[in-house]
């Protein structure tokens, strides 16, 4: 197969172009090598690197080199001088355009074309764009005027965007595999015939949704070839599968939300309904017309009792009023976006580290594709609300049509922010809860959760949703008890009906009888008194009955979180999510700004240790100023340390700020998403360089560690141990990677459970591999589960880092633990078959 080399001044540009081309040839291993930039940031080309890239891409069939401009061409020519004669004869320097040419070349190479044909395809790569824009098309060797004889057929193209690049690539790939010469033309425009083996020529046909293409073939297997093409068109050119990992650019929240709750029907739920039925009043709801809502997922601890309250939102309909002049309508859009941006920024600021979902919503408001469509609609005479609704509806629809569940779930984010903006446009107030009590809704947007008044809303009961959804996380942070995923029956509960729920167990009781209510009130009082007791002792260390100290820290995502951590008695900050300082801005914070932020957090903690996690971003949370290639699966992509090692200037600045703060207060630095010792050593070398450059030797209070989120890292803990002071287990990611179950997917809520014995075995392996010297911490959601505290202590964990309000209760859980008993408990848990069995062992309901 012919190999391809991309030569560009910019490594980022070359990488993105290669990623774009890779999308077109999914599964076909076309060798594509990059020789671009002098390093990740310095523009330039290097003839030696080009020669090496050609050598790497050459599998014997030759290499086609695509270049951007100027020195790229000169360096590529010089590279020819630097290579052996036999290889030089197999290399074609292609005069085609870089991006279009690379895409066309990749498809041709994937179809088995020779190097000259690949280069010719790439050279003709502009033809589609020129035809579309009415410019004279590039000349091509094959004018393809006549179709010749042979069988033919006509089919309608059903793809939403017509025969655009991806489906066209499928057609070309098929045509190249057939033992026939296949030609197609746009039957509706009467276009000239084009060889179906040429992506650039197929693109010139401009086939749109609903238009017919005529297919004609000649050669030995002509009839079969026509049939195969017709069949492919009938499958919409496999577009749903092809687009699974691609589709529109995801603006990406850091996890998807929402989804029909009935997917969560499962064994865990059945068990819970059994328990709910145990409450005699659960069936006493006949008069309410509520049927029998059983139970849902515990999403935020606490007991709530009160009348059912519904979200009442004024209906959101686009009025049929004529548009004023386009400039006025566009201005309305701008005003509404400004108002929504303001609201979102306020919510973002008020919700600290858990509010990152609002960053994604803010990004959506800046989406060029969306705004361009809205603009063209207002220019065409549509009113602002109509243009906005149509454009956002199309984008949400595109997400919903995708096969990739991760991308599919983005639709909920789009609809949430689209509605918010539409309300602003129309002056319709947002969703409000009338009166006080237990809020019942189908689902809750993050903005909705952030806007609830804890003084009036005793608890939240959702038909849909997941405990891992952003809205649930926000409810926990705000201390509002909640049960989610309770099924659509809860929506039938009449307004005002007495409802009780226990956010620790998932129990839901509708119109409970007085004795049951009394018992619940007693339980609530008991929980409240325990809470007060814990709060009273929060500042004291957490020591087990037999004298083992477990440090209980807080996870923070803002200076406000840090103040809350101090108020709740945190022994340290076990995790600073530094992303809050880097997202949603146009340039990275400089060293001084970072230093000031960590000093503010350290100040709030009064000199207790703070743990700075270096930037943990990836393709799902792109930084505007350091664009990353689009990845089909960002959670398995370039993120965490993988990302920052590719941006050494960024990492160096982070480390510099850490080192400077560590001169004055104890600071730990930890690297996220580490998979190999090599990655760790590269990061440590950069840290050493920073310390050497600063002078004064290593700061006394500086400790270095890694996050353990990748299962293989947990198993290799002993190999990391010599190079770290601590390991911090991120159980959220560790769980989803270990169980191959995304934590935000409500259909997998039972599976993605940190108490799964497989996850516990990984934690056990990390503790044993760490040895005596290296401290093991847990900073994921599991650390905040009171029931899990003895288990984690028994496994050898000596630090738990949790959301600030959970600190007092976790300290109490540690104080109630006996190490020997905990070790027995841990051993027993490792042998259980699943998370439910472990929960039963811990004596905690779910």
């Amino acid at each position, binding site marked *: 197969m012919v190999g391809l080399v991309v030569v560009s001044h910019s490594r980022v540009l070359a990488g993105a172009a290669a990623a774009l081309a890779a999308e077109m040839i999914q599964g076909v291993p076309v060798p594509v090598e990059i020789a671009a930039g002098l390093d990740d940031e310095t523009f330039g080309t290097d003839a030696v690197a080009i020669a090496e890239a050609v050598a790497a891409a050459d599998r014997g069939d030759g290499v086609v080199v695509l270049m951007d401009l100027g020195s790229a061409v*000169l360096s590529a020519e*010089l590279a020819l001088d630097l290579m052996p004669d036999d290889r030089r004869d197999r290399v074609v320097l292609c005069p085609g355009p870089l991006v279009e040419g690379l895409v066309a070349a990749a498809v041709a190479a994937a179809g088995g074309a020779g190097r000259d044909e690949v280069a010719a395809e790439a050279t003709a790569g502009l033809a589609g764009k020129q035809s579309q824009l009415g410019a004279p098309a590039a000349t091509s060797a094959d004018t393809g005027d006549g179709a010749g004889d042979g069988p033919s057929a006509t089919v309608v193209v059903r793809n939403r965007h017509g025969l655009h690049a991806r489906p066209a690539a499928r057609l070309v790939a098929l045509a190249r595999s057939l033992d026939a010469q296949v030609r197609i033309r746009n039957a509706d425009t009467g276009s000239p015939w084009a060889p179906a083996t040429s992506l650039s020529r197929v693109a010139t046909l401009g086939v749109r949704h609903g238009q017919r293409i005529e297919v004609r073939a000649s050669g030995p297997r002509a009839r079969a070839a026509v049939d195969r093409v017709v069949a492919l068109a009938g499958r919409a050119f496999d577009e749903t599968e092809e687009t699974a990992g691609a589709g529109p650019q995801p603006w990406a929240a850091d996890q998807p939300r929402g989804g029909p709750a009935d997917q969560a029907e499962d064994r865990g739920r059945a068990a819970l309904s059994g328990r709910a039925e145990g409450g005699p009043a659960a069936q006493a709801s006949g008069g309410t017309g509520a049927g029998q809502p059983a139970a849902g997922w515990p999403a935020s601890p606490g007991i709530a009792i009160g009348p059912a309250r519904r979200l009442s939102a004024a209906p959101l309909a686009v009025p049929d009023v004529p548009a004023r002049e386009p400039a006025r309508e566009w201005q309305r859009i701008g005003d509404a976006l400004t108002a929504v941006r303001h609201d979102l920024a306020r919510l973002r600021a008020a919700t600290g580290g858990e509010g990152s979902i609002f960053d994604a919503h803010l990004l959506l408001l800046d989406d060029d594709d969306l705004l361009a469509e809205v603009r063209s609609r207002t220019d065409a005479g549509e009113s602002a609300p109509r243009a906005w609704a149509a454009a956002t509806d199309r984008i949400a629809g595109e997400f919903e049509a995708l096969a990739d569940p991760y991308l599919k779930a983005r639709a909920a984010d789009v609809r949430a922010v689209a509605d918010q903006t539409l309300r602003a446009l129309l002056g319709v107030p947002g969703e409000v809860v009338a009166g006080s009590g237990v809020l019942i809704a189908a689902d809750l947007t993050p903005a909705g959760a952030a806007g609830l008044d804890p003084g009036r809303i005793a608890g939240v009961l959702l038909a849909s949703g997941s405990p891992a959804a952003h809205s649930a996380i926000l409810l926990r942070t705000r201390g509002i008890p909640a049960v989610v995923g309770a099924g659509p029956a809860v929506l039938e509960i009449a307004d005002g009906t007495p409802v009780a729920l226990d956010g620790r167990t998932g129990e839901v009781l509708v119109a409970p009888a007085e004795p049951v209510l009394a018992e619940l009130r007693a339980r609530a009082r008991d929980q409240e008194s325990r809470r007060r007791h814990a709060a009273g002792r929060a500042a004291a260390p957490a020591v087990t009955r037999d004298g083992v100290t477990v440090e209980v820290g807080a996870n923070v995502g803002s200076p406000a979180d840090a103040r809350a951590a101090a108020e709740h008695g945190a022994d340290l900050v076990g995790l600073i999510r530094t992303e809050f300082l880097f997202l949603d801005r146009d340039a990275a914070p400089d060293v001084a700004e970072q230093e000031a932020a960590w000093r503010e957090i350290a100040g709030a903690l009064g000199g207790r240790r703070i743990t700075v996690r270096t930037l943990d971003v990836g393709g799902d949370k792109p930084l505007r100023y350091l664009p990353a290639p689009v990845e089909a699966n960002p959670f398995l992509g370039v993120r965490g340390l993988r990302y920052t090692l590719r941006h050494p200037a960024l990492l160096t600045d982070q480390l510099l700020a850490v080192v400077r703060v560590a001169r004055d207060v104890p600071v730990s630095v930890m690297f996220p998403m580490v998979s190999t010792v090599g990655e760790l050593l590269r990061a440590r070398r950069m840290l050493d360089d920073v310390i050497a450059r600063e002078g004064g030797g290593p700061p006394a209070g500086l400790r270095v560690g890694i996050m353990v989120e990748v299962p293989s890292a947990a198993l290799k803990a002993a190999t990391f141990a010599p190079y770290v002071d601590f390991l911090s287990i991120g159980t959220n990611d560790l769980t989803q990677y270990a169980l191959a179950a995304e934590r935000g997917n409500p259909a997998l809520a039972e599976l993605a459970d940190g108490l799964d014995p497989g996850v516990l075995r990984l934690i056990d392996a990390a503790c044993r591999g760490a040895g005596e010297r290296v401290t093991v911490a847990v900073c994921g959601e599991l650390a905040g589960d009171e029931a899990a505290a003895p288990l984690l202590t028994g496994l050898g964990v000596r630090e738990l880092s949790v959301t600030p309000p959970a600190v007092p209760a976790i300290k109490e859980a540690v104080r109630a633990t006996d190490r020997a008993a905990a070790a027995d408990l841990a051993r027993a848990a490792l042998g259980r078959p699943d998370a439910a069995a472990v929960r039963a062992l811990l004596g905690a309901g779910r």
Partner: protein
Amino acid sequence: MTATVDTAALTAWVREFGRLIAAGRDLLTELDSAIGDADHGVNMDRGMTAVLAALAADPPTTPADVLKRTGMTLVSKVGGASGPLYGTAFLRMAAAAGAADALDAPGYAKVLRAGLDGVVARGKPAAGDKTMYDALAPAVDALDEALAAGRPLGEALRAALRAAEQGRDATIPMVARKGRASYLGERSAGHQDPGATSVTMLVSAAATVLGGD
């Protein structure tokens, strides 16, 4: 009249060129910012700094060695179009120097012309395109003429430098037809070409270091 240019002399030439580039870095960048992408000074300085480090770390043993390592380092470190252009020039010079331990005056002139031929082969410039060629070509011609007229190497190199300076200054009114500057069209007129400026430094370094006859 029997001036010889040996490994040490060539190394000194390259070092002097590096010094001039470092000293002229801001000037080159300023010139390039008017008609290009404002990186010529930075790029050349990065390249020559790496060359000097490489030569210092492992002193070369033959004239060809000096020239080849200079060329290879520039190819990898400069980044812009001057990387392959200067790189090719030095690599061609190395080939022309062959296995000789030292070059006489005509031998050095032959080496310099091979460098010019390399620039032509790589960049395909014509006279008046507003490139380094417009300074280097007259310099090489002047060197050959002076030597043919029986002048000693030092005098010939000073003649070459004058020719380079005239060629460099003559680029000011030219309209660029190569490189990034060509996108500016008529607007490139009125600015001195940065490539012609840096290559004049190369000739100047030769006149300073090799001209002491």
